[in-house]
């Protein structure tokens, strides 16, 4: 009996050690993120004032606010969403529900996954060539949104695909067995249950799009444009590019303004995620399984 008890003890000790190690590693991963945010808040929070949020930059961007850049980024997020959501979700539906499982389909699926690994500057160059030069949209909101949309498509498609595939096959069988058509089945019995997953993926991709500099560098971003855009063919300022400009291109820039701009960008992304969390909870509550 004693021997058995000792054995149990070593097992317990091992478990404790394993949990501690795992916990420490997790802490190690989270720590840099927390430190970054704390550092930014410490250095930048003081500069985030109402004036900073609502006024245009003045005096070589060393004074005033970042209002046009905030508006620009919001416009770009909406523009990206307008293109990437319908395209991505619809093509994922096609790939999962309709496409025959053959070599061609598998090739497309593989390409989609690999596309999400392409550096964003490549998307920037592609967008510049296609939308700005060939299609002659000029450096504009339209060209920038399209470029960001193309960049986020792979993530939207992959997330939607996974969300659709995670809906139990029995749901489809129930619906079909009651005489529903394939589209009715997708519309009423598959999509409603995949919305939480689709939301997570799309918001993630839009967050990334909001923070990217490279794709908008040649396609839409303005160095300094203190007025708001009048059409989709206008340029806009955007937070990430503005941050890049004031951090590297403007001499004697007060550091707190850079940190403040970064904080606003993080806040914006956080806000988007918050909305998605609320929506997700709402949908989960309605349909649990």
């Amino acid at each position: 009996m004693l021997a058995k008890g000792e054995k149990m003890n070593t097992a317990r000790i091992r478990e404790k050690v394993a949990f501690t190690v795992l916990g420490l590693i997790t802490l190690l991963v989270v720590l840099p993120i927390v430190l970054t945010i704390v550092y930014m808040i410490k250095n930048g929070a003081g500069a985030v004032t109402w004036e900073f949020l609502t006024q245009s930059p003045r005096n070589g961007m060393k004074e005033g606010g970042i209002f046009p850049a905030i508006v620009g980024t919001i416009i770009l997020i909406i523009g990206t969403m307008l293109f990437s959501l319908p395209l991505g979700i619809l093509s994922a539906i096609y790939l999962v529900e309709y496409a025959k499982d053959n070599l061609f389909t598998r090739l497309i699926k593989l390409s989609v996954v690999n596309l999400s690994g392409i550096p964003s500057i490549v998307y920037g160059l592609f967008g510049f060539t296609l939308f700005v030069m060939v299609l002659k949209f000029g450096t504009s909101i339209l060209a920038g949104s399209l470029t960001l949309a193309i960049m986020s498509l792979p993530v939207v498609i992959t997330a939607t695909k996974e969300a659709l595939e995670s809906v139990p096959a029995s749901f489809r069988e129930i619906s079909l067995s009651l005489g529903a058509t394939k589209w009715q089945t997708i519309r009423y019995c598959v999509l409603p249950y995949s919305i939480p997953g689709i939301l997570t993926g799309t918001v993630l991709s839009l967050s990334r799009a909001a923070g990217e500099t490279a794709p908008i560098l040649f396609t839409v971003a303005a160095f300094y444009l203190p007025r708001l855009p009048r059409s989709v063919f206008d340029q806009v300022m955007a937070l990430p590019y503005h941050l890049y400009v004031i951090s590297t291109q403007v001499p004697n820039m007060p550091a707190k303004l850079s940190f403040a701009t970064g904080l606003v960008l993080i806040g914006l992304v956080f806000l988007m995620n918050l909305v998605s969390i609320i929506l997700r909870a709402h949908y989960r509550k309605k349909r649990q399984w």
Partner: protein
Amino acid sequence: MVAEVVIKTVSLKCSFAETTAIKNLNMEVYSNEILGIIGPANSGKTTFLRALNRLNYLNVSYSQTGEIIFEGRDIKQINDSTLRKKIGIIFALPQVLPISIFDNIAYGPKVHGITKKSVVKGIVENALQKAYLWDEVKDRLSTSATRLSGGQQQRLCIARTLAVEPDVILYDEPCSGLDPISTAKVEDAMRELKKNYTQILVTNNTKQAARVTERCGFFLMGELVEIDETKKLFTNPEDKRTDDYITGRFG
């Protein structure tokens, strides 16, 4: 009594990829009967049921030759949606959608274009009553169907099938996950439904087949060994294999 043939299979052969599930099936199903299908696992019972409303085709490797005649027409000439509305199925495990009891039953009518609230309400109540579930759920139609017990869920599935007004109801081992009392309730519902529906019951439980069916077929390794009146099949089968199965000597 001359019974009307509702379903007839002619040289039906069903395969999944290289595996043949049903070899050469010629049988008839009469209107308003409860036809039992018994047999060991992998004998082709479920494949037979799912061939009747073409659910087998959801599996891409499935192929089929021969004919299935439903109400005088080859089912190949009937579109999936119409066929499945006419031939409903109850699955082995209660499969409810994670939405309210009401919405579960209203789903069928909805996809068939019935949207008027008062009409849908009537259909839902009628279906629940026929499935012997109305009294138990009438005060909580808006709660999630997943909160119901297994037996209630299975009767909800029957009600859901009834709501699209089928002619034939297929049961694929409907009581395999249920306790004896719930099983009895499902069987009661089946007996009551006999008046208006043709029913086919696939079951692993030979006692259940003896209790509720009038005619019964015995499937073995993709073949229909014998089909006869239940009483005769269980007391005096013609084929030795049937006898062996029923008396529990194999399977």
